[in-house]
């Protein structure tokens, strides 16, 4: 699949934003983080900015951005529509929670509920994003049970790193939280490794033989494409990255996004304030790099069934 930058940015940015909101609510409710107006506002503003920028960027690749509102109509059947609705709905509790944390004691029942609902809806939204991909049978590498957990895990991991980076500006991060974030990050990447294993070992779902129905005669190979230049389907769906490059990129993503991020977090938890802040920001940078590569690969490694008509032998 062609890795479209707007979609990569949207899924990663909004994922981190939603993740940070979830952590903010949970940590605040558990009392682990003192929800000062400054901290609450910063986390919420940054998260909303990421979410909003992501949503906006995702409309860039629309042929008709001015009609984007129509995408909210088919929530009964379409995961994309559901994601849109969920994303919009989630704004409401987030904003209520924001108001609460800024101007009132965030620990009142209304605000608590608003926070909890915001966190839940954030997870739902990320889940919907995952489901958009997981529901596409035509792309077997996406259509697996691991995809939704992965989207959620990465949202939680990048959200945590984001939150820590912001929080460290205001308030010395307790080591425990940073270490927890490191564990979560490693867990997310473990899940990713499992996913990679799975897609590498998965039996092909469809083959050139099944796509053409000619398998009874023998191996099926493309002799000629319909046209001598690439069409929309080949441009959009035909992108494939060589195994060699994919393997290298996977390693880089894992080392940067997983190992280096986790290390930076551990260090952040060990060091005093200004250094902890610096380490947290480094962790955020690593995490961002890692997730961008991860998401790029998510697309680039996915093979669309339609490519069977253009020379692929299996997907």
């Amino acid at each position: 699949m062609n890795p479209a930058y707007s979609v990569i940015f949207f899924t990663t940015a909004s994922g981190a934003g939603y993740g940070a909101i979830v952590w903010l609510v949970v940590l605040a409710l558990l009392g682990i983080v003192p929800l000062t107006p400054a901290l609450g506002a910063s986390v919420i503003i940054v998260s909303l900015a990421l979410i909003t920028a992501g949503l906006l960027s995702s409309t860039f690749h629309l042929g008709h951005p001015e009609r984007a509102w129509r995408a909210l109509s088919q929530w009964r059947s379409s995961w994309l529509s559901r994601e849109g609705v969920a994303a919009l709905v989630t704004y409401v509790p987030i904003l209520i929670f924001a108001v609460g944390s800024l101007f009132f004691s965030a620990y009142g029942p209304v605000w608590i509920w608003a926070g909890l609902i915001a966190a839940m809806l954030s997870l739902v939204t990320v889940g919907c994003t995952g489901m958009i991909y997981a529901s596409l049978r035509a792309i077997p590498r996406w259509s697996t049970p691991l995809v939704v957990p992965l989207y959620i895990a990465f949202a939680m991991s990048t959200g945590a790193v984001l939150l820590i980076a912001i929080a460290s500006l205001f308030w010395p991060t307790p080591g425990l939280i940073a270490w927890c974030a490191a564990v979560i990050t490693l867990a997310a990447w473990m899940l990713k490794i499992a996913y990679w294993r799975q897609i590498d070992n998965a039996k092909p779902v469809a083959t050139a033989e099944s796509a053409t129905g000619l398998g009874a005669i023998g191996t099926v190979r493309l002799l000629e494409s319909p046209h001598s230049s690439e069409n929309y389907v080949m441009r959009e769906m035909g992108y494939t990255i060589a195994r060699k490059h994919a393997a290298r990129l996977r390693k880089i993503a894992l080392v940067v996004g997983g190992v280096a991020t986790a290390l930076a977090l551990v260090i952040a938890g060990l060091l005093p304030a200004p250094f902890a802040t610096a380490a947290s920001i480094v962790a955020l940078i690593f995490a961002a790099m890692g997730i961008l590569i991860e998401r790029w690969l998510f697309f680039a490694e996915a093979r669309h069934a339609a490519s069977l008509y253009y020379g692929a032998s299996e997907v």
Partner: protein
Amino acid sequence: MTSLPTATDGRKLGLVIDLDICVGCHACAVNCKEWNTGGHSAPLTDEEPYGADPHGVWFNRVHSFEAGDGDSGRTVHFPRSCLHCEEPACVTVCPTGASYKREGDGIVLVNADTCIGCKLCSWACPYGAREYDYADGVMKKCTLCIDRIENQHLPPEDRLPACVSTCPASARHFGDLGDPNSDVSQLVAERGGYDLMPEMGMQPVNKYLPPRASTRHDLETPAPPPETIPASTDTGSDFLNWVDRMLTR
């Protein structure tokens, strides 16, 4: 409407393509382009038509495959367009309802006035049958010639999809696959018509007829000739007695 119709009227209009006959001439593809670029989905935009990278919107494309190795294999020309699936993911994923399956005849269409061009339907279609028009910013696709098949301004014999009426080899058939007695259903039954990629669960309405065994008309290889042919072919040699029949002019 993104949700699929719970029941179509029983009609399932679609195409049957005979891979045993298709010579890969692209007539169906170009005639489709010609009709449809001025038809319901007009225009089918072409980018860089005279430039380095010409490409455009086509609802029907003819691939060529080889199946099997060496002499015993086959070359199979393979036209491919929307299969008007019964469980079309292209419809269910659509966030706007622009992509829909008609109740009356099962035709899958895109409403160009509400499509936002998110392209998700093209990701969902395993067959690569959806065509994005970069200029219009909307998804387009085979309409099964919605503006021909019941067009009161065309003579009845022309109320066929453009690709079907133009196919020089008669490799394409159009009809109601929901009616087991229709010509197309009978053809599918007789010839073992099949679905493309059934594993995708889309339940295509269009069917493909397989190439027939290439050996079905072969005679048995005759016995090898005697070691030597009588060297002399002169009159009188037994070997050529058949020539000496009394012929009349």
